[in-house]
């Protein structure tokens, strides 16, 4: 099963032009290397502070755009991995081995990724097909070269 492992932001990581401390970066690199060597990581990325992002708010038919930065840093996402493991417990064990991703107190959230089978009870076959068709209309990125 797959999990999205989310590194939450902190007030420091949200600062303009914030870059992690080199020592932490090295420790993080080592941890990532260990994950890759164990064949666990499928994808990973870090995110810029929310000042470079925006929010689209929905209310009925209305759409309101709110530019970053956003408050409540600890509710924001600073980065993520996609891991393939056998159980939530395995994902937790790996996450515990991660160095504290920030200089201050911080949090990592582990969420299971929906697989197609998970939709079966709520959606009809047709609805699932539609869902994945939409997803596949996204460009294939590196696949196109």
């Amino acid at each position, binding site marked *: 099963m797959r999990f999205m492992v989310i590194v939450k932001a902190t007030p420091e990581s949200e600062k303009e032009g914030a870059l992690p401390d080199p020592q932490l970066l090295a420790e993080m690199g080592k941890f990532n290397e260990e994950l890759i060597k164990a*064949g*666990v990581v*499928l994808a990973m990325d870090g995110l810029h502070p929310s000042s470079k992002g925006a929010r689209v708010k929905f209310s009925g038919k209305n759409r309101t755009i709110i530019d970053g930065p956003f408050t409540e840093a600890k509710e924001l996402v600073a980065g993520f991995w996609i891991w393939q493991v056998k159980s939530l417990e*395995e994902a937790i*064990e790996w996450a515990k081995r991660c160095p504290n991703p920030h200089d201050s107190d911080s949090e990592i959230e582990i969420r299971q990724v929906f697989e*197609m089978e998970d939709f079966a009870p709520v959606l009809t076959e047709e609805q699932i097909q539609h869902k994945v*068709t939409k997803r*596949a209309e996204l460009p294939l*990125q590196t696949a*196109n070269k």
Partner: protein
Amino acid sequence: MSATDPHQALHRTIEAIWRIERARVIATLTRLTRDVGLAEDLAQEALVAALEQWPRTGVPENPGAWLTATAKRRAIDLFRRNAVAERKCEDLARDLATLEQTAPDLNSTLDDPIGDDLLRLVFISCHPILSTESRAALALRLLGGLTTAEIARAFLTPEPTIAQRIVRAKRTLAEKHVPFEVPRGAELAARVSSVLEVIYLIFNEGYSATAGEDLIRPTLCEDALRLGRILAELTPQEPEVHGLVALMEIQASRTRARTGSGGEPILLLDQNRALWDLLLVRRGLAAIDRATNILNINSSTDRSATDISPARKNAPTRGPYLLQAEIAACHARAHTPEATDWPRIVSIYTELVDLTPSPVIELNRAVAVSMANGPQAALDLVEALATDPSLDRYHLLPSVRADLLYKLGRHGEARTQFELAASLTQNTRERVLLLARAASCQERSS
């Protein structure tokens, strides 16, 4: 008991830790004891100790080191006991000799990089002295962290059979004194392909389940992929390892599209490409790039090291897994079946036939030719293959031939070939399909 039962929760945690640490503990202990079977027993004892102690003491800060240290202590105890016992048995004496040989290691190994031991464990589990089936079972057990019951379920084989297979494999390795080492020089390539063969066997067992109700058993594919990804990091300079990983990633990306809602197989060109897993496609293409980069670097160093002879200017040789991955990638890159780069697929098949001559690959090449250059060009190739006695009983030959004849409007001949194919196939569903096509030829020709 409820899911929140603290004992059960801890048990699951220990299980997860064990899955992460197991292969490394066994690898380290194998180096110390030079006996992979004994190493596994000692590792198992360490797990039992953890299950006894951790509920009282809590999980140690570095559980991997705890497990390794505990297993090592058991090893030392065992060797001491054997040493003080009467030395009637030669084995005991040899055990002691082994301990003395490896004694300096006992203190220093804890901090050593375990990557090399893990790679040695990969090579010994997949040693060509063992049958392919034994290698697969041992690799899943020692490297994949699967229990005997899980392996038995995966291969739809009774558990005692798998247990026996593993016991015998470990005994063979001990009896033949198979060294715990990373092969060097000329031997390395052969041993790497022995490992790749095992991983691909495991993958295929999951991907095109040869028996059982499910056409695909995805967890086995995931286990094989994980082994492949681990190997790719242990031997990053081997292009074929990346080639196999690429092939598996791209094939696995189609898992959701390969069976219909009734469980029936869906062929590549009929698949709903929207169901392909883009993350795995991207990983597969990235693995192809890694393999290609290694080959390019190797060939440019070859050139600078020697003269620039014309022969060296050719693209470096791609191995069979990388070539198959390249073919899979041609399909993965095409958004629709019509967008498939068939001429490129034909040329890769040509390279593959040159490298590993096989009438089956030639038949596949002929199918690609029909897509690139039309049915007549392909039919000429297939009819030449029809004289090959090794394809006498191969139902896909008349099946492909029939399809080409049908496309050329030669319905009478097509019908005969469809019927021949139907009489040769083992698969009921396929036979029904072939007979239906034969019947439609009859309508057309009458």
